[in-house]
């Protein structure tokens, strides 16, 4: 074990560990910038190196999105076909077709040069609730409802933040006045959010026996948004595990080879 105990190795490891800690320290404050309230970490099925999405949860989450969020928020990077893809809600092919057919899509021009409406197909993107940003603002008291495609990766705290936000509505504390048209929210930076309380108990009907509580609605739609932002998460973790096993073994063998080669040499 001479190589391990050599001063150079020690120095190398101290420097690497030091730089890594610094790296972590840089990254952490960079994300914590702004006076964000503390977000409680939830236990998600997709947490950790062996995480997977809960299909039922994603399917319920899609229902919550469609029936509540989609009224104001688009998801322009999502297509109906994604709902049937591996690692997602995994709706059946027929279900994906049916879900897509629920929306009307403007297509064309046809052979006569006219635009026409048709039922949606799996290849279509999720419809946008507003024609443009100006229309969205006009309908929402001046506020622009952001696109939710990558929302779970665009906020510090990810799915935990979204859950905290959706369950964070309350009456303002003593002495805090909320501006006209705004709502008090514990998790939102600045605590004043334009979005009105979106979810409440029995707000969305569940058909799989899950209790239709605010808490479940918020959890399910947060998980759905996490999948929407990172649809290849399961594939990533699956390949990551195999690659890690291979790589750690390779590193071990290379270490043995190194010891063998250097063994005959005094160093």
């Amino acid at each position, binding site marked *: 074990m001479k*190589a391990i105990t*050599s*001063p*150079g*190795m020690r*120095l*190398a*490891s101290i*420097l*690497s560990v*030091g*730089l*890594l800690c*610094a*790296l972590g*320290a*840089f*990254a952490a*404050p*960079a*994300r914590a*910038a*702004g006076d964000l309230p503390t977000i409680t970490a939830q236990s998600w099925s997709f947490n950790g*190196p062996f995480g997977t999405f809960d299909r039922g949860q994603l399917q319920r989450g899609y229902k919550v999105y469609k029936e509540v969020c989609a009224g104001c928020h688009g998801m*322009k*990077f999502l297509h109906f076909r*994604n709902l049937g893809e591996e690692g997602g809600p995994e709706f059946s092919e027929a279900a994906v077709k049916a879900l897509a057919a629920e929306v009307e899509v403007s297509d064309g021009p046809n052979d006569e040069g006219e635009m026409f409406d048709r039922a949606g197909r799996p290849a279509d993107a999720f419809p946008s609730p507003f024609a443009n940003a100006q229309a969205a603002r006009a309908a929402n008291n001046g506020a622009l409802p*952001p696109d939710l*495609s*990558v929302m779970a*990766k*665009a*906020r*510090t705290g990810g799915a935990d933040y979204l859950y905290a936000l959706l369950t964070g509505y309350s009456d303002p504390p003593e002495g805090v006045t909320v501006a006209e048209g705004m709502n008090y929210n514990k998790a939102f930076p600045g605590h004043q959010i334009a979005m009105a309380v979106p979810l409440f108990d029995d707000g969305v009907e569940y058909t799989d026996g899950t209790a239709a509580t605010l808490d479940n609605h918020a959890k399910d739609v947060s998980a759905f948004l996490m999948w929407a*932002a990172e*649809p*290849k998460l399961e*594939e*990533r*973790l699956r*390949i*990551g*595990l195999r*690659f*890690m096993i291979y*790589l*750690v073994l*390779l*590193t071990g063998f*290379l*270490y043995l*080879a*190194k010891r063998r*080669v*250097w063994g*005959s*040499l*005094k*160093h």
Partner: protein
Amino acid sequence: MAHESTYKPGNALSKWFDDRLPVLRLMHDQFGVFPMPRNLNYLWTFGGILTFFLVVQVLSGVVLAMHYVPHESMAFASVEHIMRDVNWGWLLRYMHANGGSMFFLAVYLHIIRGMYYGSYKAPREILWILGVFIFLAMMATAFMGYSLVWGQMSFWAVTVITNLFSSLDAIWSGLGTAIVEWIWGGFAVGNPTLNRLYSLHYLLPFVIFGLVLLHIWALHVPGSNNPTGIEIKTKSDSISFHPYYTVKDGFAMSAFIVLFAFFIFYAPNFLSHPDNYIEADPLVTPPHIVPEWYFLPFYAILRAIPDKLLGVIALFASILLLLFIPWLDTSKVKSARYRPIYKWFFALFVISGLVLGYLGAKAPEGWYLIVGRIATAYYFLHLLVIMPVVGWIEKPTAMPGSITESVLGKGAGGGTPKGAAAAPERR
């Protein structure tokens, strides 16, 4: 180290080839039997690791470029297209993004190693200077690459950094503004800016590649420095590159890739900022504009100086000064291992860099600003005053007579005449 070629073509074909393009001879002489100091520690493995990351970045980048669209209204969407619809696109993008971070982690360790062991001192000054140029080119490439995502942090980082040149208005009114508009290709950061950043982001890695070849060439003239800073004197001081350092570098590289893979598969977005998943919006400024972690020390230096122009000068000086350290360091001894005073100042220098990195992510106010100014002052004091002065006054500790003596102890070959000691391979 320049040495006589020992390559012997094994057959008629390699002989024929060798007479026309002796590339096999080059590989044999420079990477096969090339004499290396026998006492290199693991800090000497980062050269190989860095070469690996240059290749990773170029290969993943070339494929990403096949799917990326450098247009202000399509860039962000094309990145999402890569993440969602391109086969293995998520893997390529996470490799490329985290590969940049690993590239910088390795280069910082490589630079710190070079500074601690005096690898910049004669006869390796040009080697060092080429290294500083590579570092500069890496910074430019990384900055441009980050902008291509066209998220909020990309857009505002480009705005802030290109705006640094407007500080020249303080020298000659209008000069800075003219330069900034020339860089932007307009009156604001927009599509022309994105297009040129993309073009240069694709160009610069090949410039780096050329600089790396020169860097290796300049390395192979004097040969590698080593932890004692004493040059190879006798045959027993050296061992051949292959198999000793191929296997050692291979092991270190593989271990480093474990770290790389950890970030790719388990924390792919940890080192970047969530705001960059928000599409660029010229009308909305993020509350805190922070660069990627590897630029934070320099960002802290920029913000530690109250005057804009002087801040920009300090920023560039903090890197360009490194070009002169072969002459700023007046010590006769290369390795800080034998420099009882300088050793501690050097540790302080590394700490000041880490502190600056930490502060780069904080708002420059209150204690953060005061500490940032102290660390900035020390950074420059170290390079401009401590390096020359300590070199003059310091009395180095006892050094071994040779590399062999440092490894095997006194009287074990330090004075052995050249060629007398058996080849270490046969020991």
